[in-house]
């Protein structure tokens, strides 16, 4: 139990259409991530699912039951917020138990579930503390614990890692992945960070300007992007887009090639250019090459390389891994 079906969800704030007809089916136990640039409507969509916003039209079904007129507390969901949103006047224990208490669960039941959740998140030592006495990472774990305790059909995460620093973000990400394996419940997660999306999701929903651009597994999106937007959004550094006319290709408007699918040589290759900037990351070396004919091209090399600014280099694209896009930005072939 824990499936979700969205049918033609639309949401407008006055004249502005934020969601323009979203259709989506999420299977029980899936980890689905909504990803997209800010303002694409992903958080609004999550709020519509939670019942915190009313959709202008369309239907939301949880476990096959229409919930458009059901208040958030009765939808069988739990939500983790970016700002933690812990109740400042309650202890960690009461924060986690409040939802159940409101629903009228017996006290022994609540205590048992809070106990279990706090063990899972190693929060046992902090149960008596107030949120103000916890660090950011601990607060986010409490927020996650508060969601677990409710044993929801659907977990909703609204950019839960955005307020954490880089190291903590990686740890918490792993923790969330572990949690999903353990609980096997349906999770819906919103982020603008494609690394989070790629590492956590079973399926990614790429949103842009209130429209679903593509739905697929992380590798599907990486290997077979449906259009320019998805191709540019998934993968870091961003895919290079080259005007097909400059390459003498006909039948396509734009040619896309990922930075990691270009090899560099100091002697020979089809595209000549000079390095304008080199980033040495140890595991990777990223070169920004101003080519003679094609403009700026980003190249990602694995390991350490001794290229420096103003070096003249020759680039060779892996032609088997290029993408061709038509006038409207849709991918051709494949």
């Amino acid at each position, binding site marked *: 139990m824990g499936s979700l079906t969205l049918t033609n969800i639309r949401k407008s704030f006055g004249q502005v259409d934020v969601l323009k007809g979203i259709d989506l089916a999420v299977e029980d136990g899936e980890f689905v991530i909504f990803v997209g640039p800010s303002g694409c409507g992903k958080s609004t969509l999550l709020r519509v699912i939670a019942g915190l916003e009313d959709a202008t039209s369309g239907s939301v079904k949880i476990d096959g039951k229409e919930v458009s007129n059901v208040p*958030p507390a009765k939808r069988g969901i739990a939500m983790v917020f*970016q700002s933690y*949103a812990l109740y400042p006047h309650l202890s960690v224990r009461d924060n986690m138990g409040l*939802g159940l208490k409101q*629903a009228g669960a017996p006290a022994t039941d609540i205590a048992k579930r809070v106990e279990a959740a706090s063990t899972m998140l190693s929060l046992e030592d902090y149960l008596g503390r107030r949120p103000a006495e916890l660090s950011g990472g601990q607060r986010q774990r409490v927020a996650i614990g*508060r969601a677990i305790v409710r044993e929801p059909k659907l977990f909703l995460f609204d950019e839960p890692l955005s307020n954490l620093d880089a190291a903590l973000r990686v740890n918490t990400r792993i923790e969330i992945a572990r949690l999903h394996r353990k609980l096997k419940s349906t999770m819906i997660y919103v982020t603008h960070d494609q690394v989070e999306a790629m590492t956590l999701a079973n399926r990614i929903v790429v949103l842009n300007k209130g429209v679903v651009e593509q739905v697929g597994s992380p590798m599907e999106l990486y290997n077979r992007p449906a259009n320019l937007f998805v191709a540019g959004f998934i993968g870091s550094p961003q895919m290079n887009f080259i005007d097909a006319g400059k390459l003498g290709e006909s039948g396509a408007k734009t040619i896309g090639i990922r930075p990691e699918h270009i090899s560099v040589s100091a002697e020979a290759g089809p595209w000549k250019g000079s390095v304008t900037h080199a980033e040495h990351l140890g595991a990777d070396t990223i070169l920004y090459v101003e080519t003679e004919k094609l403009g700026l091209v980003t190249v990602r090399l694995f390991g350490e390389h001794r290229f420096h600014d103003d070096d003249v280099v020759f680039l060779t694209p892996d032609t088997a891994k290029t993408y061709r896009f038509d006038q409207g930005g849709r991918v051709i072939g494949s």
Partner: protein
Amino acid sequence: MSRARSSLPRSVAMHAALILYTIIAVAPVLIIIINSFKDRRAIFSSPLSLPGPNSFSLVGYHAVFAQGSFVTYFENSLIVTVVSIALVLVFGAMAAFALSEYRFRGNMLMGLYLALGIMIPIRLGTIAILKLMVATHLVDTLTALILVYTAQGLPLAIFILSEFMHGVSDDLKNAGRIDGLSEYRIFFRLVLPLIRPAMATVAVFTMIPIWNDLWFPLILAPSEATKTVTLGAQMFLGQFVTNWNAVLSALSLAILPVLILYLIFSRQLIRGITSGAVK
């Protein structure tokens, strides 16, 4: 104290300015209190000197308490002030919550309409208010004063509180909704504690004009049973003879309750600010 930011001349100048301001603010109050403990001749011959063994006298306080109903006046003032503040805070906060939390048609206009009262003095409507009170048989009751003061305090309260309500995290309120809290619980348990400093500010701003008001008690509730302290002190001011001892004593006494209320609120104010700072 950090040395980098303070130099001697600068802190001297700063303290001089603050001390000057303090003297200007406190002097009148101090003179009232000093003179309330002196006999009549001493008040006029040397108004600035402290009460000495020759000039010390409690005759003013005797006159005030001999007057008998002065305790009633105090009671009236306190009831009117406390009840009005409570109503202003409750209704003001509720209106501010509705205005900042819910999107509805005319939200903006409603906010402007409610804030309009800041710019228009309520005394302009005195005659209409009096007519209204006569028609509803509320003249010479404390209820009349409480209603008027609540109306007088609401605009500023709504204006200040709705600004603060905007600052309360939406996520927190939404977390409450998902946990099944009613809107009232969200308002009373989550939002109000967070804006306590703003509430204290509003309480202080509301309290002083109510306590000091002479106008409405004089017009709406001048009877013996409903007189407030400010109105009560007036009876020692005659057209030909003024019992200065009694006037000064009454005023000195009138400072006390309002001072206590202020201390209570400002304590809240400071606690609110510091609890926010270390969060």
